């Protein structure tokens, strides 16, 4: 099939590209490198430990778009789902539970939980214990050997028992899927993105139906709501011991250790931020002693300058763009990653890369991250 008119030069290049030999890889080396990595991040291998190996806290802060979040209204309790099977959603309606403690085995697929002033704690015996933090709203999507919760608002913390299933507890936030595999982590919604902070073990984060990536403690990763990673940064390892030796932390403690703000308020804060007011969101682990790092303003100025110079606007047309800038600063002070969400126009991006590449922060032991919402004008 040919699309469009025949272009002889293009066709010849295509033909040559097809004929071009593919480099033969050193498959032995690939195998040798791949094998230990499989061992580090097994997802579909059998695991026979069934006892709690440590605290697993999962917190997700997500602000569902307001209208979508509150759509389900519930008429009454739904039938119970067997613990060991995946139960289809009951057609008779979905229940809402707002009480403080729920037996997970009494839940049904489709059942909704809301935590107003008080948290809701759900326990699936021998499987998981999770907490919907105050202000949260979630519903059950799957029960049985795999418990999947859709978080529509707020935050979830969870502790999951090791099981033969490689993924026994999954939280979905819109198009992002977070699979728990013996870990403690937190995900924060920042505007149209989510950030996961892993304090123990490894979690798989990725788009629903797509490949996930591992986030290993101690680190954090930021994704769009459709699961695309926009940055990954390593946190400081100053917790005074190995991960496995950390004391178990409840949801509140985990939240306190990560972002200072309470989960349900985060989306509102993020969405209500006036674009003109740049909202510094420096990672909790970034150096704070001297306020904002000395070069941050320089970078912001460079971005603004590039936008002005590279954006074409005719006549009196006024162009305004809001974007979130996320910088990952390496220990050396160099910028390891600069992500803009939504992305900058290619010309602006190239200009920023050229300008930012020459900048360097002061060295710090573990590097740090800077997030800023920028309003760019031309």
């Amino acid at each position, binding site marked *: 099939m040919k699309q469009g008119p025949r272009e002889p030069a293009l*066709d010849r290049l295509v033909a040559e*590209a097809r004929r071009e030999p593919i480099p033969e890889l050193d498959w032995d080396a690939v195998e040798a490198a791949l094998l230990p990595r499989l061992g580090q991040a097994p*997802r579909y291998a059998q695991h*026979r430990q069934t006892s709690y190996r440590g605290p697993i806290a999962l917190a997700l802060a997500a602000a569902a778009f307001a209208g979508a979040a509150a759509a389900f209204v519930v008429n009454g309790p739904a039938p119970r789902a067997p613990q060991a099977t995946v139960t289809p959603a009951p057609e008779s309606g979905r229940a809402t539970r707002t009480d403080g403690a729920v037996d997970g085995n009494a839940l049904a697929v489709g059942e909704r939980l809301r935590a107003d002033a008080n948290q809701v704690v759900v326990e699936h015996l021998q499987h998981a214990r999770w907490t919907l933090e105050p202000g949260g709203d979630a519903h059950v999507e799957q029960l049985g050997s795999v418990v999947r919760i859709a978080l529509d608002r707020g935050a979830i913390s969870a502790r999951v028992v090791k099981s033969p299933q490689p993924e026994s507890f999954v939280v979905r936030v819109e198009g992002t899927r977070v699979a728990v595999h013996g870990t403690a982590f937190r995900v924060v919604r920042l505007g149209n993105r989510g950030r996961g902070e892993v304090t123990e073990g490894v979690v798989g984060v990725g788009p629903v139906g*797509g*490949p996930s990536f591992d986030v290993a403690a101690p680190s954090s990763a930021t994704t769009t709501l459709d699961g695309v990673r926009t940055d990954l940064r390593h946190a400081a390892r100053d917790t005074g011991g190995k991960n496995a030796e950390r004391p178990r932390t409840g949801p509140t403690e985990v939240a306190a250790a990560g972002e200072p703000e309470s989960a349900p308020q985060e989306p509102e804060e993020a969405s209500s931020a006036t674009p003109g007011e740049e909202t510094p969101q420096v990672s909790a682990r970034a150096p704070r002693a001297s306020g904002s790092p000395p070069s941050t303003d320089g970078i912001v100025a460079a971005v603004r300058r590039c936008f002005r110079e590279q954006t074409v606007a005719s006549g009196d047309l006024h162009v305004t763009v809001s974007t979130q800038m996320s910088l990952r600063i390496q220990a050396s002070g160099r910028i390891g990653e600069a992500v803009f969400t939504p992305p900058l126009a290619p010309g602006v991006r190239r200009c920023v890369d050229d300008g930012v590449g020459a900048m360097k922060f002061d060295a710090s032991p573990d590097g740090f991250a800077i997030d800023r919402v920028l309003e760019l004008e031309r």
Partner: protein
Amino acid sequence: MSAATWPLLDPPWAKSRAPLGRPAGKISGVSDVSSLVTRCREGDAVAFRELFQTHRHDIARIIYRMMGSSADIEDLVQEVFLQVHRSIGDFRGDARLSTWLYRLTVNVVLMHRRAARSRPHLVGEAAAAPPKDQRILPDEQVARRRRMLTFYRIIDKLSEKKRTVFILHEIDGLSPLEIAKVVEAPVLTVRTRLFYARRELAAMIREEPDLASLVVEEGPTVDVVASTVREEST
């Protein structure tokens, strides 16, 4: 977690470590894809190895063509199979396994490219360097290699979506229907992207000094053919 906990690292995978680059005579064939997938899900090392052996060349080829160079190809192959290992449970058999693998591969490459793009470009790309054995290549091969480098450079200027469908269709030979499944877009959208990709590339080729001779060379070829046909008809 100890390595011994995971059957994937246990025998027979660990003990029958025949080089994966060669045919594994000891491994019996698993003709049924669903059976192979099921066994992979269960942590069957032999099944995963067979999956790896069966599809690694296809995956390497896609990566190479989408990257336009051999840089990072081994790392990306590993990354793809890590994703396969991790996500095989998500494969529900709605599409062919090869389509699912293509999708996984495309996503891994795109994520890699996005990450690379987000990094400040402080040094020149190694991929732009001439091949090491350039001196011993015949002139035509050198010229062809140079054309390919230029071609991939201009392909790189396409948007991500157009570049993906162009490479999958024009260079790798997938049908628009297959591509639609890979990129999870309607077939019509795929065809539209192909149309515009070709049009943009043709325009860029005409503007590209390194390919100017090719445009001149290929132009008269059509005329010659046409005139030959006319001569034969008379």
